[in-house]
């Protein structure tokens, strides 16, 4: 995994695990790999993994089971909220970039709707 040098690594790991859950690599109720294994997979240190996991546990996305490890919650409400906030994060970045280009809100929504259409068109032609 490539990390952004200016964003805390623990935060990037939280986002990574959230994404793994959203795309179904980690299903509700599934066990998350052990701390050391995650550290080796992502080439980061064990403390950083622990911090990321603690934050995900705090948010209710992961549930620790004593002596067994951490598991993805089966609470769909929590997972739905997590997905929603991941999507909002992407939109926020996009919004900030477009606002920096001095696009009005109307121009943004029109431009985005058009873009989505061309993307779909492009896929159909493949």
């Amino acid at each position: 995994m490539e990390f952004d040098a200016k964003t805390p690594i623990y935060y990037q790991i939280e986002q990574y695990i959230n994404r793994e859950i959203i795309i179904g690599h980690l299903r509700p109720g599934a066990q998350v790999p052990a701390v050391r294994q995650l550290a080796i997979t992502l080439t980061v240190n064990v403390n950083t993994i622990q911090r990321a996991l603690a934050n995900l546990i705090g948010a209710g996305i992961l549930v620790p089971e004593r002596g067994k490890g951490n598991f993805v919650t089966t609470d769909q409400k929590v997972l739905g909220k997590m997905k929603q906030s991941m999507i909002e994060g992407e939109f926020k970045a996009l919004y900030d970039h477009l606002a920096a280009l001095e696009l009005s809100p109307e121009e943004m929504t029109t431009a985005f709707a058009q873009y989505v259409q061309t993307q779909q068109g492009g896929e159909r032609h493949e």
Partner: protein
Amino acid sequence: MSDVLTIENLSYRRNWKTILTDVSLQLPAGQIIGLLGANGAGKTTLMRLIAGSAVQFKGQIQVGGQTALARRKAGVSYTGQLTDIDPRWKVGQIAELMAQLHPDFRMADFLQLADLLDLQQKQRFNRLSKGNQRKLALAVTMARRAQLYLLDEPFDGIDVMTRKAMLNSIVRWLPDTATMVISDHHVTDIDQLLDAVVVIKNQTIVAHAAADAIREGGQSIESYFEQFYEGGENDD
């Protein structure tokens, strides 16, 4: 958590030249620390002093609460320990020597590390490429069960793929309660691995900060480090 390394008011001169002045540093157990500084800033000297390879200093150095040289040395595993081996020796012989010198050396771990890093047991030290010598230094260092690991420029002259294998070995083999200090003048080689950075400049430690706290401020470790050396100043 208790401190693995405590340095108080350390000063060191060699051949009438001051190399370190009034260095104080405390490192807790279970961390990976990047020791950053320009070439000639004193990174290697500081490691040699901690490891007990350089001895005539003022001040105090404690490793795991031990100050006496022999006891302090026993707790430190240092990549610079290969500097006085016979270069005609084979990789396997060097490992056997390390096993004799250090009771905490684990041959089984060494063999696994050597395998992971693609080192041939029968190859002579002086026939190894510079990169393979670095890999051997890392393997013998990580094969010990020490409290404090000191890696001096472990990735110097190492290609990208090998560096990944080496970083991987570090994460895999570093004991939970041990602390590691890595010096590297390419900060980006190691920045994702670090809990904290320590910056050396003008013969002393000028900063000690948590890596993710630096990133929380929107700064990369590299630019954080570089700001100490802005304005063309150099220790070379």
